[in-house]
């Protein structure tokens, strides 16, 4: 065991932690404990012994932290990844009956567990902002101001990705453009593909996969949801000069966001604050943060009493991120379950989605969740989208309708064979100056510059050729 410098925390191996919990302390884990997986180790029941054991068992703060992790009252789940970062998950737990601290658990790849203690939510938010957030202190325009329905928001995220696609395509095709655009079929097809591919290097899949509890939010996608893109100045209709094809031109807001995310977005994080109960946990607050060099893009999910899901997007400075994240965590960590639930009584917060996460990994709406939200959490039907030119569009399979697959890290994702360059149709390179392909180039024997084959002297260094 070692202590973490700069924070109140510990670094332990998974084995040692499992043995401490099961073998030494003989703790029984609640259904919501993030230690479940660790304690399934075969030799966990064997107690720790030796010097390390004495040190651990004598550390009251560590023992309290472990007890919190074993039976938390509230659990914050954080999924980090996307952009340039691989997927990872960590938790922040609280149990006021055990200790006042908030206890974070992060499982590292090397078989180590990091346990960090935070005295309050502001300390956690400060740590998060310092570690992952933008450092830009000046406010930034919010090009996706509230309110945007969840389905509209997905289109907005995809439009940012579409700008990235258009930029990369322009780059790869050696076709610099004054104004980025994308064809409507490509815009729609890439939307479908982005959801199907689950590639978190892109923003839309990142949001879908990194948000714990997202799949329980009602999603009723319709063609008119696309209107938000023109309404907010993300795209506008245009035509290509040559063949008058309808294209989506990236307007000011779309370009600004597109450039920002193309150049400076590295990763994102999804959060769920849940209340523990006997069967698992109930998600109360859900939010998403995508830091860039310009701003912390902060998205809070909400459900209105009419059962509609909304995304409230804000651009926060570090100071605003800390304040708002701490407020949201305070709200979530002080939430209690409604009376109809077997766990502690309390009122259901208006405008918050509540879903039960059961032990078998399935999710079910909470009995007292907004009535209409219960009616259609997973049965949302997708209306086919049509581009302005009325081209038919194939219905999209929602990720929520598909059976849930365990999330795969980018490196573990099934690899599709890449088309070999040699198999691709090859276009012969055209010679500069339209020289006949058969003409053999002649170089100066002194300076090495390409010269006319009939020349007796080099045009560059002036020396005679043999």
């Amino acid at each position, binding site marked *: 065991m070692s202590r973490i410098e700069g924070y109140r925390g510990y670094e332990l191996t998974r084995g040692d932690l499992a043995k401490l919990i099961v073998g030494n302390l003989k703790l029984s884990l609640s259904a919501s404990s993030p230690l479940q997986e660790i304690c399934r180790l075969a030799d966990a029941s064997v107690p720790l012994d030796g010097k390390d054991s004495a040190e651990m068992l004598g550390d009251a703060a560590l023992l309290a932290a472990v007890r919190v992790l074993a039976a938390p009252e509230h659990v914050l789940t954080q999924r980090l990844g996307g952009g340039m970062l691989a997927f990872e998950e960590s938790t922040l737990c609280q149990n006021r009956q055990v200790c006042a601290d908030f206890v974070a658990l992060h499982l590292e790849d090397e078989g180590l567990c990091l346990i960090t203690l935070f005295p309050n939510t502001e300390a956690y938010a400060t740590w998060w902002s310092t570690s992952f957030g933008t450092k830009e202190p000046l406010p930034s*325009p919010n090009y996706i*101001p509230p309110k945007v329905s969840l389905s509209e928001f997905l289109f907005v995220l995809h439009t940012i990705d579409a700008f990235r696609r258009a930029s990369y395509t322009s780059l790869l095709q050696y076709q610099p453009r004054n104004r980025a655009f994308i064809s409507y079929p490509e815009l729609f097809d890439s939307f479908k593909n982005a959801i199907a591919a689950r590639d978190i290097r892109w923003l839309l899949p990142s949001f879908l996969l990194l948000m714990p509890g997202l799949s329980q939010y009602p999603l009723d996608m319709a063609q008119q949801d696309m209107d938000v893109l023109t*309404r907010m100045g993300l795209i506008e209709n245009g035509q290509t000069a040559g063949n008058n094809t309808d294209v989506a031109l990236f307007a000011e807001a779309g370009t600004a966001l597109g450039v920002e995310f193309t150049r400076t977005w590295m990763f994102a994080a999804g959060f769920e604050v849940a209340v523990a109960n006997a069967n698992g946990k109930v998600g109360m607050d859900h939010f998403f943060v995508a830091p860039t060099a310009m701003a912390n893009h902060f998205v809070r999910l909400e459900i209105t009493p009419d059962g509609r899901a909304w995304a*409230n997007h804000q651009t926060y400075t570090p100071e605003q991120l800390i304040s708002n994240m701490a407020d949201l965590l305070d709200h979530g960590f002080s939430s209690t379950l409604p009376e109809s639930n077997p766990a502690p009584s309390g009122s259901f917060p208006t405008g918050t989605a509540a879903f039960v996460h059961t032990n078998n990994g399935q999710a079910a709406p909470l009995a007292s969740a907004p009535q209409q939200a219960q009616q259609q959490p997973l049965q949302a039907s997708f209306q086919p989208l049509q581009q302005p030119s009325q081209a038919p569009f194939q219905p999209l399979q929602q990720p929520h309708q598909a059976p849930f697959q365990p999330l795969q890290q980018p490196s573990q994702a099934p690899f599709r064979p890449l088309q070999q360059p040699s198999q691709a149709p090859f276009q012969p390179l055209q010679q500069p100056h339209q020289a006949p392909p058969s003409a053999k180039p002649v170089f100066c024997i002194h300076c090495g510059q390409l010269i006319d084959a009939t020349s007796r002297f080099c045009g560059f260094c002036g020396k005679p050729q043999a």
Partner: protein
Amino acid sequence: MTQSNKSEERTALLKSCGETMKLIETLQFKRLDLKYQIIENGELQEAEVSPEYEKLQEDLFAADEAYMTYCDLYTDLLPEVTLSRCPFTGELYILPFDSFGIDGLWWDSDEPVRPDVKLPDTFLVLTGAMHLTGKLSAMPFIAMPGPGKPYVHPSVLLQPQVKAVVMALSVGPHTAWVIAYFADPLQGNEVLVNEWGLDVCFHATENGDWICETADADPDDFDFDLAPWIQSGKLLWIAPEDAHKTLRSDLEKCPYLNLQGTEQLQYVQDGQVWTNEETYETMADDALSETELQELVTRLQEGAGDE
């Protein structure tokens, strides 16, 4: 009731209301004259119960009653107008608002008729500007529609938790710009400015009470260059007649930049319009010199000595 019927009913109501307001003013002046007469004669007690004074009181009371009835009827006719949207929560800011014209009692700067409504938790203050065109209000009260083009209050907007939203709408024949300020979190100690059309602002206290104060309203402190505020993310805009009231932050399509119009505060009364600049000039022209002021003070002191 259709919008057209409402407008006609409102016009008739305001005509009667305006006459009543003028009547009240006349009666109040008469009462003052009578009172001063009474004071000079030293027969205050007897005069108060004189038939003439009693009749005056009765007429005034009846006129006040009529005015209150008109106010109630007017309130019922006020349409609910979406004036803005909170940039933090997305909540619409909807108010019973007189968009028919500034001759309505909503615009009475002295005694505005503005029904109480539940405001968004993040709402801070409502300000505005107006480009006056066509026929001006002939009502006897003073309306203060603000400068002739949109602007922001830097002192308010520079606060980190504050953002503003500008939106255009028609108020009768005039083009108005609503500039609403929101704060998240609303801390209660924000720098405030006077509400649109009034010379007061409202502070909510910790126990939920409201305190009414007068803030400085110097147009020199206004900033009419909106572009930097939009670029910094502090000012958002809503396109005119946008049914969705979608908040925008882009600059290229913003229709509220570089507009023509006076940067002075405008005042409208009895079909006349003037600005604060003109008022100050008039005051400067009529200002007393030191000598004149001293003479006036001496005369007053002598008069007081005689009594």
